[in-house]
Structures are given as C-alpha cells and as structure tokens.
C-alpha cells in the first residue's frame, strides 16, 4: 500500500542514551535495569537490550504519517525475533488516538516477520481511527521485517 511510502526518516540523532520516553518504554517491556546499547545500522539505529551478558531483545523507533501528523512508535522484539510489544511514543493528531490503547496494541504481540499483519484480518480496526490503524500496522510490519532481516544477517547481534 502506498501509505508505506509515508514512513518517515527521523533526521535528528541524539548523542548518548535514548530519550526518556524510549527509556521508559524499554523498561516497561524488558523490565527495569536492563542494559541498553545503541547500534548504528545504515542510516538509522537499533537499541540492543541485555542483562548480565544475555540478550533480551532489540527495539527500534519508527515514524509513520497519520492523517496529517507523524505517529512515533516503538517496536520491541525478543531474541527469537518475535514481537514483544508496540508502544505509541508520541501521538499528535486529535483523532485516532485509540491506536495507543493496550487492547489494540496487544494484537501484535508474539507475531514474527513471517506472519501476515493485515487490518481487518489479523489486526482488528477501530471505527473512526481507520487511517491511524492502517498507518501504524504498516509501520510495525516494516520495522519488524527490518529488525528481523538485520538480525538474520548479523548486522545486529
């Protein structure tokens, strides 16, 4: 779908650790006190999460265009490339904010890049939030596929 083209490149890079919202999201998903390393990959970067030398998983932040604003989200996977959870980090539009609700995000858990993720099939939509539902679903699909490919090729490990 063409909306995939709306995936936006983040232009700014913050030196040092991840910003507070990302750190809070990582702590929620992987438990507090996990070690977070930033891996530079191509033009972007991936967060590697570990504890005491054992890998807990990876996370990446993506942006996708909603009706007229970017939606900033985080995708976290476990060491077997299964999706742990999706977090909506910043939602800027006045409508469609339901994509941040846990009952909707929950539908992505446990999915892998091989699974099909389609609105109205595997992912239930939300009336009145259709644009955001499609946008975030495509965004998650892309980030999940990218993380899985990087992991498989050893680009991230």
């Amino acid at each position, binding site marked *: *779908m*063409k909306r995939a*083209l*709306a*995936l*936006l*490149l*983040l*232009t*700014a*890079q*913050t030196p040092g650790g*991840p*910003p507070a*919202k*990302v750190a809070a999201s990582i702590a929620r998903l992987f438990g507090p006190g996990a070690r977070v390393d*930033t891996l530079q990959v*191509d*033009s*972007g*970067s991936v*967060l590697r999460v570990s504890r005491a030398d054992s890998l807990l998983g990876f*996370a*990446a*932040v*993506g*942006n996708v*265009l909603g*009706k*007229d*604003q970017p939606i*900033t989200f985080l995708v976290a996977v476990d060491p077997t490339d299964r999706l742990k959870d999706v977090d909506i*980090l910043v939602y*800027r539009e*006045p*409508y469609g*904010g*339901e994509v*941040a*609700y*846990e*009952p*909707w995000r929950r*539908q992505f858990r446990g999915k892998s890049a091989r699974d099909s993720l*389609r*609105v*109205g*099939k595997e*992912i*239930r*939509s*939300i*009336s*009145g*939030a*259709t644009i955001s539902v499609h946008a975030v679903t495509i965004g998650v699909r*892309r*980030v999940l596929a*990218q*993380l899985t490919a990087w992991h498989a090729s050893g680009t991230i490990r």
Partner: protein
Amino acid sequence: MRTLVGWGLFAVMAPCPVRVLPAQERTTVGGYGEVHYANPTGPKTPPVVNLARFVVYLAHSFDDRLAFRSELEVEDAKLEGGRPGGEVALEQAYLDYRVAGWITLRTGLVLPPVGIVNETHEPPTFNGVERPGFDHDVIPTTWREIGVGAVGTVPGGSGLAYRVYLVNGLRADGLSAGEGIREGRQEGRQASFANPSMTGRLEWARPGVKIGGSFWYGGTADTNSAVGTGTFGAPVALLSADARYDNGPFAMRAVVATISVSDAEAINATYGQSVGSRIAGGYLEGAYDLLRLFAPASSQKLNAFVRHERYDTQASVPAGVTRDRSLARRITTVGVTYKPTWNTAFKGDYRLLRNAAGAGEGEVLSLGVGYQF
C-alpha cells in the same frame, strides 16, 4: 498518498531511537469525493447522475503542536447563478493546539460531534450510496458551526475519548416539519451568536467496538422575542447514542437520537411552520463481507448490507399542529459495497422509502463511487 509539501526527508525506512522530530512547517493535502447514479421507480422520474461531493482536505502544521485543518467542498460539481443545486462551502476550518495527549484546544468552524456520520463522513466509511436519511433529516450532516472547544482522550488507557465545544446556536426561522433542525444550521456564514450552544460527546473504544453518546443544547430565538428570550430562548435539546461493532467479516452499527423543541408552538406561530416538538428515530445496519466466503485471503472487501431506518420529524407535535404521518419514515436499504482498498468504494443499493401515511412512497436504485485519501 497524501502529499507532503515542504517536508525534507521522507519515504525512507530507518528506525532509530530518537523521538524528536524537527519542528518544521509542513502542508498536507487530502480529500474525498463521491459520484452518484440514482434511478427512482415510477414514470417521469429519469435516472440522475451527480458528482455529489468533491472535497479538498488541507492542513498545515506550524510546529509540533499548532495545526490548521480544513475541508473545502464543492457539491453537485458546479455552481451557476439562477440554476438550482450546487454549493461551494467550507465544511471545516479550525486551528488545533495540542496541549497534551489528553487535551487539544480547538477553535474555528467545527463539526458538532453528534452521531456517527457527521464527523466520519468520507464515503468509504459508510455503506449505501447516499448517507442514511436519518443523517439528513434528524442529525443534519454535515453539520458545522463556529466555536471553541477541546478534544482528547481520557488518560490511563481507559479507552474513553471526548469532544466538547461552545458554538453558535441554531436559528428557529430555519426549523421545519420535514427536515427538523436542518435548515436551522448557520454553517459559519455571518452566524448570529445570540444563542451560544453547547455540544459534546463521550466515546469508548476497543478493537472492533465503539460506543458513543452525544448532546447538543442551545437556544434558537436569536433576537425574536416572540419565539423566546434570553440566551437559551426556544431551546433545542438533542441526545444521541451510537454503537459500531466490527468482527472480521461481520459489522454492525446503530444510532438513535431524540431532539426536543420545547417552544415549537411559538416557533410555528411566528414562522408559519409545523415543526414537531419532538424529533426522534434511529437506524440499525448489519453487513457481511462476502469475500470471506469466496476469497478468504483477499484484503479487499465486498460488504452486503441491510439498513433499516425509522424516524419521525413530528414524533410529537405542539398545539395547533396536526401530525403529518408521511413524516414518520421507514427506509430500508439493501446493497453492496465493494472496497478494493480500505479508502475506495464502489457501491450499489436499493432503497424502499415508506411512511406511516403510505403517501408518496417509492423505491430508488442507486450506484456510486467514493474515495478518500
């Protein structure tokens, strides 16, 4: 795809652990539209084709928090002096200031958040070529007025969202027996602010479920003391509830509304109308995606639907008015909506127009196409 003008870098997949976006101005263009074919039964009623709506959505972000949003509409393709039909109008035009996730302040020409269709009116979002009759005669879509308000989601993941506005009121001189409050709307055109009105909505969402309740309350008298005095002179009070359910191939939606016009007698005496003191009704619609049976892997949809509407713009009448039973309408629509993508629709339906008087009944075959982007 929505066009981004003035956005430097986009269309590149690059996850990175940074959430800060450049506070860059950008303009977004979108739109929706629909073309209709309608063939009523009976002699001397030839089929009519019409470019019913062509709407351009234009938004501009001044920074990460302040945005302008608008919809400019052309109805019936063309506007020409001395010819009936045709309209060029702003459907929405407002500024949003996002204070936080739970509150965005809004001012301008806004949509009263009443029912389902008024706010979510893009053709691919509803079944049937025409909007439901209820969404014309009871809830007068597309209803827009000028005012200020706030929209947002209740924090804590409760699934609740709200919208509340203070806007200009309706005008009693536009109320009518057949179309209720419809022509009482002022639509942002030199609107009288003599009767500021409140409108709002609370809704609850889960995947596949949305339930909402809406209200409108405000005077309509304007400066005519024969109709009423004070800010809330000749008030119109509207209450509405709606529900949408979507579970794989099956979808349903329902809306009910009741509108009380407590000074209908004075309005009728002043303007020579037969406005009902209560306007009420609703509809129930069920749909099933037939492609689930024939092509389960397809992401396209072929919704077969049936909708039954019952509403009466003279559900109650004041002294001096004899109920016109032909206003107690029953409309049954059966049809299909083919959606090759979620934002395009090819529609066909058959409408049975009935009323309690059995007068002027008819049937209409309609075809249509609609899109949004």
